[in-house]
């Protein structure tokens, strides 16, 4: 499973590196970019969301789509950006072993176990689902497919168990 909270590290011996970020994520990528330059490996990017604006999805799709086996992807930025780039990457044939990601905005997506609504939260405290009114306790059970943590029902102050 891909770990979005771990610090990014240089994965050596790759044919090419692709770096994608937003302004905040660029700070995270900066030391990595320096390390890639130091080893003299080819790379593309950083592709910046703020610079590319409306063309961002198309450019990322195009660049990832023409990568060959042995390419490696780094993504850093908001959860929304990381999720979007990962979807493009998977569709282009990248696997979890071909990339590292870092979420920088600290928000979490919680999946309602009754109505499936996903709610953005900044912490793991109990909350009420806006869609169905169920009291939910965020868990650490994570789905990469939904990019969300499971929210368990809370009954009368007692958790699901």
């Amino acid at each position: 499973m891909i770990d979005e909270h771990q610090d990014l590290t240089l994965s050596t011996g790759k044919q090419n590196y692709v770096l994608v970020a937003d302004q905040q994520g660029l700070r995270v990528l900066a030391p990595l970019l320096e390390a890639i330059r130091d080893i003299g490996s080819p790379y593309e990017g950083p592709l910046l969301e703020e610079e590319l604006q409306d063309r961002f999805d198309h450019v990322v799709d195009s660049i990832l789509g023409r990568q060959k086996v042995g390419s490696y992807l780094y993504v850093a930025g908001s959860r929304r950006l990381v999720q979007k780039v990962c979807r493009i990457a998977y569709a282009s044939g990248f696997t979890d072993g071909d990339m590292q990601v870092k979420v920088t905005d600290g928000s979490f997506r919680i999946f309602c176990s009754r109505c499936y609504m996903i709610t953005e939260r900044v912490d793991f405290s109990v909350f009420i689902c806006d869609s169905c009114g169920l009291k939910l306790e965020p868990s650490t059970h994570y789905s990469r497919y939904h990019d969300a943590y499971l929210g368990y029902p809370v009954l009368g102050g007692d958790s699901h168990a």
Partner: protein
Amino acid sequence: MSSSIHEFPFPFEENEYRYKNNSVLLDPPRSITVDDRYEEELDLKRRLLVNHHDRCYQSLSHSLEAQWEVLRLIFYELAQYNPEDFQLKRHGNEWIFQNHRLQEEERFIFRDTGSIELEPLDLAGRHVQEDLILMGDRHGDLFLDAGQLCFPSNWSLVFTLGMDFKSIHDPVPGIQQHHFINKVHRFIKRIQPGQSWERKNWSITIGPKLDTHLETYAEWGKLRDQVTEDNAGDKVHLRVEVQRLYRLPVNNDVLFTIHTYLLPLVKLVTHPAWLRQFYQNIISLDQDIADYKGISHYQEAMLAYMERWLPGERNSQHDR
């Protein structure tokens, strides 16, 4: 729901519960069983599928080929082992499956999705009591690619769709200890094409309820707080899942079937050997597992109920 104690797959072999891969190789390789609750359970299953289809059926588009292989396996197996109830006729690619138990017939062109109204896994699942989960084997891992899940023990198919094997089991307490989950993962990866393995898993359900989806926990979860020593015999049910793993020879994916059985405590106490072994497992259960299985709410009530048939048992437990 009628539950015959003679057909019940009692799951305990020891007096203390611990994680164990107690799988046995089946010869011949079977993935399903038809029993006397067939009509009753199929009726419930189909009502759930009609009223809550998203909750009970999910699939990823790339699973379609493997789904056809599952359909072939299920229809062949029904016809081969229960020929008086099911028949399968083939005229080239045109298949006719007859279900005499339900007085139904399915006609379709094999591997032509335009010839059936449902996806193949969804169609096959409507003729068996088992829940059917299709695990795609790729990139060195197993992924939940599709499933028909009507009788889950408190989990959500919608949430787990697309999830890898180890992530699915993340919430199970202590499963990482001694690399247990890694060993099970390795075991499944090594299942040979055409082989079928069976194991039993257990939990407790309050009331004779098969469809305990996580989505409806708010409705049935509260029943856990209503168990008393006096009503435990009728309310507490030992829930056993007979789980089978079958490696699909053509697609190399794994079909995971779950046949769920319920036995009320009032019937279990009539089998003295089972009662004693079940009692010993419940009283010695680790707290985190009791919490995870939801037993903590009524553990004391059900123990007290069982002690009516096991006088002095608690004291002898303490003396050990």
